[in-house]
């Protein structure tokens, strides 16, 4: 009789290895899926993946996507480390975008950039954080499952943005559902180096990665977050408050997604203004789950995985535009990657072999 035998590895493979293999395999698989739509996978690879790398505009887009993913992803690292499954980065991001719009257009539109931009990010953090906090408090006080609550709060945020751009914040000069443009002092790309990449976001992003690393591995709170996430029973038995950890980690996680939302509306090549929600975030809050996971739920590798996912996301988008109108190529890419990554995680921890028990029985009998 043939059977699969699954054994735990003595020493787990590192995330670097499993993630690299997972990315490679999922890109190949995704390109092969394109064959079904009579798209040449090699052409698609060249145009989609290599194309953006040789143009300035390409790099700008990679980093625009990548920085959103970096901020959402590093926030998710905190939540996931606490064992809180925050699926709501998308909604928290949108709340950050709302905060940025409020600050830039209504609160202090005439402030100089040195005041305006920090204020946008600060309030973006608070809005996103409070959005996360709702789910955090529901979980810590009433034991409401955070996967469901954060997921549903995404839709609430989504509708809130819609309401604002169609209603009270709609730009009277156009019929499109957008807000008025931000004042020029709020345009993040005005502060960029030789590449059109938002320097303020880049700096904040790197700072958040360093902050998160320090928080998790060098502070009492971070220790408590990791203890609760890894063994809540033991943490409780030695006096660590699970409630506190849940609430704080959801606030920080949501706050960082809020920062991403500020960048999403004010840091791109498009005119900075509040738009329809699907134009602000095309599922970045969900792709960030992959970013955090590919990084092995560690803050520093998020820098690499977020930029890489920025490229993959862009590649999917380019292929979609050039070869396959109407086909959700980015969805194919991320879907395949999610699948491959979950399989890779099993292989990382377990050795899987096939044994023939029938033979042994024959020998013994």
């Amino acid at each position, binding site marked *: *009789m043939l*059977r699969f035998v699954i054994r735990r590895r003595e020493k787990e493979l590192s995330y670097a290895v499993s993630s690299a293999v997972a990315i490679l395999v999922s890109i190949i698989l995704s390109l092969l899926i394109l064959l079904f739509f009579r798209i040449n996978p090699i052409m698609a690879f060249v145009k989609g993946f290599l194309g953006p790398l040789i143009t300035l505009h390409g790099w700008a887009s990679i980093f625009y996507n990548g920085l959103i993913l970096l901020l959402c992803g590093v926030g998710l690292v905190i939540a996931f480390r606490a064992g809180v499954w925050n699926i709501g980065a998308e909604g928290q991001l949108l709340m950050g975008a709302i905060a940025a719009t409020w600050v830039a257009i209504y609160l202090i539109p005439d402030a100089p950039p040195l005041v305006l931009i920090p204020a946008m990010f600060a309030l973006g953090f608070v809005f996103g954080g409070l959005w996360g906090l709702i789910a955090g408090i529901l979980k810590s006080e009433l034991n409401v499952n955070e996967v469901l609550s954060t997921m549903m709060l995404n839709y609430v945020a989504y509708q809130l943005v819609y309401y604002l751009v169609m209603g009270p914040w709609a730009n009277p000069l156009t019929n499109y559902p957008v807000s008025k443009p931000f004042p020029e002092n709020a345009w993040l790309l005005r502060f960029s180096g030789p590449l059109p990449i938002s320097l303020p976001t880049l700096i904040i992003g790197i700072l958040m990665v360093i902050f998160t690393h320090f928080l998790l591995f*060098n*502070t*009492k*709170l971070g*220790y*408590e977050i*990791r*203890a609760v996430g*890894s*063994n809540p*029973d*033991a*943490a*409780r*038995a*030695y*006096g*660590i*408050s699970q409630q506190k950890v849940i609430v704080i980690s959801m606030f920080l996680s949501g706050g960082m997604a809020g920062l991403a939302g500020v960048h999403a509306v004010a840091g791109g090549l498009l005119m900075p203004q509040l738009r329809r929600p699907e134009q602000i975030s095309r599922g970045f809050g969900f792709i960030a789950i992959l970013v955090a996971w590919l990084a092995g739920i560690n803050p520093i590798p998020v820098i690499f995985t977020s930029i890489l996912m920025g490229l993959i996301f862009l590649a999917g988008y380019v292929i979609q535009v050039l070869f396959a109108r109407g086909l959700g190529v980015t969805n194919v890419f991320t879907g395949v990657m999610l699948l491959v990554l979950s399989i890779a995680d099993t292989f990382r921890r377990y050795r899987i072999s096939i044994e023939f*028990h029938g033979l*042994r*029985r024959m020998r*013994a*009998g």
Partner: protein
Amino acid sequence: MSEELAVRMIGITKRFPGVIANDNVDFELRTGEIHVLLGENGAGKTTLMNILIGLYTKDSGEIYVWGRKVEILSPQDALRLGIYMVPQTPKLVRSMTVLENIVIGLKKAGIILPTRRAKKWIEDIAKSYYVLVDIDAPVYRLSASEQKRVEILKALVRHAKILIFDEITATLSPSEKADMFKFMRKFARSGGSIVFVTHKIGEVFEIGDRVTIMRKGKVVGTFDVSEVTADRLTELMFGRRIVVDVPHERAIPRDVALKVEDLWVEDDGFQSVRGISFSLRFGEILGVAGIAGNGQRELIEAIVGIRKPSRGRIYVNTNGKLMDITDKPTGWRIKNGLSYIPEDRIRYGIVPGMSVAENLLLGFQGCGEIVNSFVIRWDYVRSWADNIIRRYGIVAPSVDAPVRHLSGGNIQKLIVARELERKPRIIVAFNPTLGLDVRSMKYVWEILVRMKQKGVAILLVSEDLDEIFRLSDRILVMSEGEVRGIFDREEADINIVGRLMSRAK
């Protein structure tokens, strides 16, 4: 017919990391008999039965079923041989009806589930074995005992000839238990064989034809029930009192350290602790003897502060006065001199994904030398941890190694070391040597005795009677969440204590 062997297990050995669960075990089950497998928790009964139904693979040994040598690799293999285990907690699909649960995976039931013929057929089987249950009811509406009946029906429908009951009576009322026994006798009379796994000595005489006693992974005897007495079974089950080789001196009476008053604690809607009162003095070990699942876990969790009692108060001696700590959080209790050595050391004692140093830090993360305004001083922690593992003789590659790579004995040493480093005034130890090898066991015992001599109050809750008798100054016997008696060790008799423990009311 009755002399024919249904099952014969020879020289079964099964090792788990750090423990030998079954050590060269022989076991025979005759056709048509009800065979009681008796032993304490951790004696290896369930492991042996899990090997028989293919949940575990044995390391060595042979199994014969109906005289034929077999390799049982999965519960499906076992079922093909007619062997079925009625699980401790029923494994049923709660949203489906009884009938649907029974026919799941059954080839004979047909493709469109469930046919009227299948229903009639199952009802007939149920009636002929007195297993009465409404087979159209959804499972979530059934009581625990009705769910067990469904599990039995599943076995009967699958033509099981050898039934294993693992601690089946734990949640049954007396009348439900009587019904269950009625079924068992009927099943045995019509040619089936039953292994009845239990730790209750009384049940041996209620239902058994023969009894096999296990202790610490070994079989220590098999008897016809008519030829054996309860005292003899107690002695075999818990072991003879061996001369204590841990230094023991009578405690000098000192102040009360911990006082529990009429404590009631709930678990999942069930009153697990029912009005327990006792006091524990400094420089004394109070042993709480009892069989697993009689409220010890809930009692301890209330004392440590993980579980809120539904009634009663807990007092702790602070600065010479008894202070009500019933509503204080766990962290406060730890800071004020309470140390906790938990039962399930992997689940409650350590964080497996963290390093040795990080695990030693558990509960210390707020201390002044370790945390410098929220920032952990890792250099200090690592040298502190290094010092601890050297002083306590914990074998670990380094303080940065993941704690899960340590052996069971060393994990327990780490927990004990951490708890002693708190300079505790009260230690709550729950099965502190369960599953440990002899050397680690002696190590833990010696430390507990030394702490007692230093004046620490120790509450030792253990299922190991031998341990209780070796270490305790006084022994509290607990059963069904109540105190059955408190004895000075000198006047305590192991047979009486054993019987009080295993006697249901």
